[in-house]
């Protein structure tokens, strides 16, 4: 199972005065098992890019290959592809429509032509993975809180058993607690289900702790494609395109500049605390 993107471009409203080059010659590969963070400023083309990955949008030029097969070749079953490459849109709760949560989650499996029993089994399993308590399953999705609706919607995609799960800004509009819950849930899913994750965000803090590869997008181009440590060490460049490194990176950088010999390639608050404590007493201001 691998996804290969070969030199794609995408132009919205091609041939009009309003045409926008949303993607500009992107090539990369998504192998199994990675946790990829896709970061970029508003309008950099993240949402456009992820719609390429499951064949919802066809590139203006270039190709997308799934297991070596061109996704837009005649006769390629793109509906099957969409089951393998699950895409959770920005504000996915806006796609809920069924009378109860369980039926809504069953929508995807039903479209795959599975039996009633199988659909239900998958829906239940998916709802467990997103930690939505059982008491909500037969409620109307519109009676749920925003955060709960979002979990239900994510379960709707998860129930298709994708091998790559793409989440477009899953934390948008949530409070810090809701944000951490969703991110932890995503990490849990990766570990339990051994699926590949692509997490889209414009906040580095969101992806820093979880991703093992970070793609930085700017104006339709992939500007960096590297490990979090390497990406954050270029925080000056990130700032130039309206992004920033996680806050701990700045703290460590500052401490080092002021003479405390700490490491600066640190990503999480916990690591930072350990590192600072290890150097306790070495600072003589």
């Amino acid at each position: 199972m691998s996804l290969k993107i070969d030199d794609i471009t995408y132009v919205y409203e091609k041939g009009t005065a309003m045409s926008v080059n949303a993607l500009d010659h992107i090539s990369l590969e998504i192998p199994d098992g990675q946790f990829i963070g896709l970061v970029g400023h508003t309008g950099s083309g993240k949402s456009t890019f992820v719609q390429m990955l499951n064949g919802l949008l066809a590139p203006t030029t270039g190709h997308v290959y799934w297991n070596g097969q061109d996704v837009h070749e005649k006769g390629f079953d793109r509906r099957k592809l969409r089951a393998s490459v699950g895409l959770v849109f920005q504000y996915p709760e806006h796609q809920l429509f069924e009378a109860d949560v369980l039926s809504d989650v069953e929508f995807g499996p039903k479209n795959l032509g599975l039996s009633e029993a199988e659909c239900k089994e998958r829906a239940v399993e998916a709802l467990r993975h997103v930690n939505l308590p059982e008491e909500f399953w037969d409620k109307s999705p519109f009676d749920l809180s925003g955060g709960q609706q979002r979990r239900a919607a994510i379960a709707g995609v998860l129930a298709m058993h994708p091998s790559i799960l793409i989440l477009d800004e899953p934390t948008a509009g949530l409070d810090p607690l809701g944000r951490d819950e969703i991110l932890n849930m995503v990490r849990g899913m990766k570990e339990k289900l051994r699926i590949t994750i692509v997490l889209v965000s414009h906040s580095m803090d969101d992806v820093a702790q979880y991703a093992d590869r970070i793609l930085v997008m700017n104006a339709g181009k992939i500007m960096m494609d590297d490990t979090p440590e390497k990406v954050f060490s270029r925080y000056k460049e990130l700032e130039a395109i309206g992004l920033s490194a996680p806050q701990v990176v700045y703290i460590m950088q500052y401490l080092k500049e002021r003479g405390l010999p700490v490491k600066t390639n640190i990503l999480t608050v916990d690591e930072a605390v350990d590192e600072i404590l290890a150097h306790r007493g070495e600072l003589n201001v």
Partner: protein
Amino acid sequence: MFDGITLGQYYQTDSPLHRLDPRVKLVGTMAYIIALFIVKGWVGYFLAFLFLATMIALSHVPLRFVVRGMKAILIILLITVAFNVFLTPGKVLWSFGVLKVTKEGLVFAARMAVRLIFLIIGSSVMTLTTTPNQLTDGLESLMGPLKKIHVPVHEISMMMSIALRFIPILMEETDKIMKAQMARGADFESKHLMQKIRSMVPLLVPLFISAFRRANDLAMAMEARCYHGGEGRTRMKPLIYKGRDIFGYGVVAAFFAACIVLRVVGL
């Protein structure tokens, strides 16, 4: 996905026609449509053509966009022409069985086609050069006298501008929801009628919910800014006639008068 719906879409650029007061364009378009039905002879149609061609040139809108509106009425046009060609009684030129092509039929059909094409293109030029907001402002101002007989002119035009404003938003929303459901394996391309209808539910339910949510938000936002209807409301950009607008009215009046004269002298 919605390529067909371009009739009535604003084309952003700067041109003498764009700068013209929307009321002049509204009155001008009305006058033009009426004139199309006043003229009878080919000289008259040629004058109408000249007028239209000048307006298109003045609008700085690429011809491609101007004629795009034709796509929507192509079928109607063909049917009208066919009916007129075959069903007008008169001097028979050719006949295939029951179908007879008459000289009068051909002339009548050509005249109908020219009128329809000019009419559509003429109104397209107006909507291409006037934003929906300007249009409704213009309408509100032109219908102003009706307030005296208690027609809620302001409310009508506010509803119109909101509706117009929401069309592209809802189209975008439809596209988004459709894609989201397709990502869950929904099939919107099925050929079976029943399946097609059933596949609309996952699209329409979220669409309606979102439309209501937006309407609610908008009402709230308007109230928060103390909107209370048209009474005593002032405008940020009041419509004021400038020299060029008077000139515009003059041109329209001259064209209209010329059409009447041509009709009277039978050209």
